[in-house]
């Protein structure tokens, strides 16, 4: 049973939006994104902002782990580098946010490039453990330069607009209608997230993305076919950490005050891995769906946890949502290896075969 139209040429295969349904879906999604902040409460707009941050971070990890097959448990380290870059730049030099974000990405990408040589020599689990080491090292460095980073007590993240001392958190006012901070952020963050998804889609269908997939599936075979595995892996690391750095900056600007751990600890790395596994590994759709699923499940899990008698008496709300979420992820991993992508494919298959069962 086909889930996709028969492709007869490379041009067709490379199209971003291969048929009418994709375009309709895209327009519907954009319309939803525009209408959402007008109807949603401040709480849900904030959740949407976190989702956008997670989407950018998850896309970064998807490039590295999903496309290029390099397992990294140090993703949070790159987010931390991004977050602290904008925090320090903002505090010391009053760097505006639109300059801070790409700089955060670049700072993280530099760290990613530094990991490159290790990635070339190590595989699989060895690499995974070394990236945990990176996470601890970054946390240690951030802690020990406390006079710049604030150390254990954390640091405020000012969001300058570049116009004198003006900061971004003042609401915009149009007559008697005003756009508060979280909705302003929403506009910026959704644009970045959509842009990141497009970039990732384009990487996936270009020669670079295909080289990554070849390296993931078998790097020796890829080398025989003329792909340079070393170069591909290093580019994957740099790209991935760029996205992570931007996500870190987004996180920092939204929180306005950050500390080192939590949130930038192993738990965060694991959450990002959970996102891409939940969404479906190896696709941009997976990163986006996983990030949305993850950030929306957490508040839901909290409200469900309150109603489970034994749990709610003995655990904090954060612990409740952690355990419910962990159980959901375990069940997914065991019963639905393709994640949300698997669900989606099954729904598509059902409707394209309708009214028959198969």
């Amino acid at each position, binding site marked *: 049973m086909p889930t996709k139209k028969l492709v007869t040429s490379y041009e067709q295969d490379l199209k971003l939006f291969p048929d009418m349904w994709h375009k309709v879906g895209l327009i519907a999604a954009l319309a939803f994104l525009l209408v959402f902040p007008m109807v949603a409460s401040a709480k849900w707009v904030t959740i949407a902002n976190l989702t956008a941050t997670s989407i950018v971070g998850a896309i970064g990890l998807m490039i590295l*782990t999903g496309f290029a097959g390099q*397992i990294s448990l140090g993703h949070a380290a790159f987010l931390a580098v991004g977050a602290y870059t904008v925090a320090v730049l903002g505090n010391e030099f009053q760097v505006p946010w639109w300059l801070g974000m790409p700089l955060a990405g670049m700072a993280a990408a530099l760290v990613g490039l530094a990991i490159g040589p*290790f990635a070339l*020599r*190590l*595989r*699989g*689990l*060895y690499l*995974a*453990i*070394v990236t*945990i*080491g990176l996470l*601890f*090292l970054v946390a*240690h460095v951030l*802690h*020990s330069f*406390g006079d710049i980073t604030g150390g254990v007590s954390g640091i405020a993240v000012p969001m300058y607009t570049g116009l004198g001392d003006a900061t971004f958190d003042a609401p915009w006012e149009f007559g008697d209608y005003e756009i508060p901070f979280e909705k302003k952020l929403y506009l910026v963050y959704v644009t970045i997230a959509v842009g990141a998804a497009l970039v990732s889609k384009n990487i996936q269908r270009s020669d670079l993305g295909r080289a990554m997939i070849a390296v993931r599936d*078998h790097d*020796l*075979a890829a080398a*025989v076919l003329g792909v340079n595995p070393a170069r591909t892996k290093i580019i994957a690391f740099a790209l991935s950490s760029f996205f992570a750095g931007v996500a870190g900056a987004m996180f920092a600007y939204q929180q306005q005050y950050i500390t080192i751990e939590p949130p930038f600890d*192993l738990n965060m790395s*694991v959450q990002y*891995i*959970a996102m891409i*596994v939940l969404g479906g*590994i190896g696709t941009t759709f997976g990163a986006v769906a996983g990030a949305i699923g993850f950030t929306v499940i957490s508040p839901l899990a909290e409200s469900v946890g309150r109603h489970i008698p*034994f*749990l709610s008496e*003995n*655990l904090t709300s954060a*612990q409740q949502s*952690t*355990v419910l979420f*962990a*159980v959901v*992820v*375990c069940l997914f*991993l*065991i019963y639905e*290896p393709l994640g949300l992508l698997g669900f989606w494919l099954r729904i598509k298959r059902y409707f394209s075969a309708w009214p028959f069962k198969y």
Partner: protein
Amino acid sequence: MSTFLQLTISGLALGAVYALVALGFVVIYRASQVFNFAQGEFLTIGAFSMVAISSQGVPWYVALVAAMVITGALAAGIERLVLRRMIGRQVFVTIILTIFIGLVLRTLVVLVWGTDPVGMPTPWEMTKSFELGTASILANSLAGIVAGALALTAFFLVNKYTKLGVAMRATAGDQEVALALGIPVGRIFGSTWFIAGALAALGGIFLGMFPRTVDANLGFVALRAFPAVIVGGLESPGGAVVAGVLLGVLEVWCQGYLNPQLGHFGHNFHAVFPYIVMIVFLMIRPYGMFGTKDVERV
């Protein structure tokens, strides 16, 4: 000189715990190519069940064995119920699964035993110590070293001379051939998890005695045992033990000698030091001390 001796002994005690944890990782990894991130939680569960059992008035040594058996059985149960279904799936997916099993277990620990730290009972006085030259050694850390050494010897004897050990080695070598030769591979997986769980429990009990008390975060020490596994080579039990002891000693030496030298940067530097040793070491030998290089067919 007395500082040196003192540091070395407490390093050995810490190293014995690392070795026990690292050996647990390696035993599971060799048999089923699963890297078990929930190992730290077995440590915590072992320590807490020890406290719970001995508070019922059970003699100390009986409680020790009981705690090991309980933790081992729990580990084997998790393998049978969850990880057995994952055979043949990507390595990556099983890693993630064990991380989340660990999260669930940690929450269970909090549910059952709460978050307050408790003291580990000892058959001797808490602060009893021996004089060795100019250094004084806590009975607790000495017991940790001795118990670690005994457990490790027992493991290597079992591995070398018993039927179970031979079957375990055969499964590690080639699962399909082992199956064809009539070795019950599934049961071997179960036994490796049992052994790993029991070793972790022992580590947790002795860790809970000396440098720390028993609380829900005891298992984080497993994160510090990772470098031992990697430096030793993922597939080598001997390597895990040697590297575990070595890194334990190095860590304490670093805490004693290097940290004060580094000024502000040295604060807690010993916590990341094993990782630095690991990264440097992997640059020289990417497969660890005794690990084998993969030979691949295209």
